[in-house]
């Protein structure tokens, strides 16, 4: 039977289930982003969805703790339940397509699952479908058939007509559609666990031996190895993201003097600065300049996690309006969103002010990113798979030193 790729629908776009692995019963179930150690906020709810007595996964599939890896963030709500339940059902018969694995069928899923395995309606289905249009087009172009699973009640509420929808009242209809066998499948799984376990152990030993041999001999990984796929793809993804991240600098100029505290209700002239080259903004003149807003635009079609920090190269701290520069900022950026940080100019200066802006962004948020960025370790950020943008900005001193 062919492996099936499961996509969980979110309002930010589809999130692919990349892997489900059994974990030690001494820990809690966790949903991680893209193979990293970043646990998503739904982890606690997923643990409750798995674990007896509240959960249904342990009851159906016999194990109490799992780690799931998904390709994109899933922030909250319960509409992921049907998607992850479907993924567990496929995993149980070794039909869940892993990351990078070829597949001949994809399922796009949204819905809640209750303790009796009924499928309950969810919100924002139309929006989720719209956000997944690029994926549907990709799958169509690749010739991969798609099935959409959603609660029956939601189907009746759709304003647009969609093909390939399978309305569900219970998970049994999903079992039937995927040819999983409604009652026998979990029972077979439980009865044969011991036999499969022994077989799996042998397979692991053989595969492990081959892998170790390859490693020692430098022959390279098997083309189907997830590790190999990840190693090849990760830098590519960063390179792909890079051109879609844009650093900006916007001047806030007051017609007269700047107010004592920015912004202070002043009507400013807003001037967007051009770049002289990829790493330098056009220098600013001092007169009338109150603040500069540095920003990072996410021009890609996917959400990213972004960080930005400004560094002042040389200073006259005695005259700073603010005792310290603005701290680092970070948050998730939806497509088209901007993360910005504002540097308020000192009231008085006779030297040029040199600013360095460093921003980083990626699909993942490695734990140490803030620390690396605060130390301007751009190479480390890149090695962690993040796209990095830097630019310098000079603010020329006044011709004659005066209060601004």
């Amino acid at each position: 039977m062919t492996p099936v790729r499961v996509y969980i629908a979110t309002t930010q776009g589809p999130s692919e289930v990349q892997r489900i692995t059994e974990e030690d019963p001494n820990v809690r179930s966790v949903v991680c982003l893209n193979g990293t150690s970043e646990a998503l906020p739904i982890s606690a709810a997923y643990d409750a969805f798995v674990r007896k007595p509240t959960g249904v996964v342990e009851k159906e599939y016999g194990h109490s703790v799992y780690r799931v890896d998904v390709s994109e963030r899933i922030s909250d709500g319960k509409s992921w339940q049907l998607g992850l339940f479907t993924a567990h059902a496929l995993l149980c018969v070794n039909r869940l397509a892993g990351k990078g694995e070829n597949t001949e069928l994809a399922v796009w899923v949204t819905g809640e699952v209750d303790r009796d395995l009924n499928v309950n309606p969810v919100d924002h289905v139309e929006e989720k479908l719209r956000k997944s249009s690029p994926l549907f087009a990709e799958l169509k172009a690749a010739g991969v058939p798609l099935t959409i699973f959603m609660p029956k009640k939601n189907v009746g509420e759709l304003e647009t007509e969609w093909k390939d929808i399978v309305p569900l009242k219970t998970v049994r209809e999903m079992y039937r559609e995927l040819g999983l066998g409604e009652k026998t499948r979990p029972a077979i799984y439980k009865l044969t666990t011991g036999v499969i376990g022994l077989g799996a152990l042998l397979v692991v030993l053989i595969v492990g031996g081959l892998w170790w041999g390859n490693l020692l001999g430098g022959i390279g990984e098997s083309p189907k190895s997830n590790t190999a796929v990840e190693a090849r793809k990760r830098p590519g993804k960063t390179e792909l993201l890079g051109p879609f991240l844009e650093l900006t600098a916007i001047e806030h100029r007051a017609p007269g003097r700047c107010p004592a505290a920015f912004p202070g209700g002043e009507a400013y002239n807003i001037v967007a600065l051009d770049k002289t080259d990829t790493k330098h903004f056009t220098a600013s003149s001092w007169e009338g300049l109150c603040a500069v807003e540095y920003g990072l635009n996410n021009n890609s079609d996917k959400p990213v996690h972004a960080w930005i920090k400004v560094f002042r190269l040389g200073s006259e701290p005695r005259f700073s309006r603010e005792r310290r520069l603005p701290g680092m900022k970070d948050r998730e950026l939806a497509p088209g969103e901007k993360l910005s940080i504002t540097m308020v100019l000192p009231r008085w200066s006779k030297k040029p002010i040199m600013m360095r802006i460093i921003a980083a962004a990626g699909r993942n948020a490695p734990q140490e990113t803030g620390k690396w960025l605060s130390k301007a370790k751009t190479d480390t950020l890149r090695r962690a798979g993040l796209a990095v943008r830097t630019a310098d900005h000079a603010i020329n001193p006044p011709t004659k030193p005066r209060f601004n």
Partner: protein
Amino acid sequence: MAAWSAFTSKQKTAAELVFDALSTMDGITDHGDASEAETQKIGFSDLYSFATRSDSMMDEELEHALKQDDRLRENLDKLLDETALYHGERVAAASTGKVDVREGKGFKIRLHESRASPRHIYIIIELKDPKAPSPTAMFLRGSKPLCQKLTLPRSQDGIIQILADSDSEMIEALRDIDTQVFLR
């Protein structure tokens, strides 16, 4: 502070001359180290903010100041001690100096390697009284780095679980017997 507009032109000229002189003096004494120039005096309010506010994290300036100033470190220790809900002292362990379990009054921390991904480690904080107030931040006070802060997820039945890279500074600090843990 008087408004600039309240000064006479004579006063303004005098102030500009003084500022010019001070700026020249700064230029003479400036060693040209950008990172040093950027570092400004860290005060008690910065420490307090770091110890008590969830959005205040360790940054380069604070770390630098803590390294340089013994008194600041003492103040941080006092603050953490006074504001923490739970405190785990240094571990009295055998000579290896590495621990996977730490216990403090009212809590226990276990490090558990992930079966699914051996390069990741679960940090499991077990509160002995699940109904006790749940901490929202963990501070690791060690030697290198001096202090790490981590925002904690909500506890579930008295258990807080975090996943971390096995080679991260956080794991290294938790395994170091000389690290003190403060849960706030």
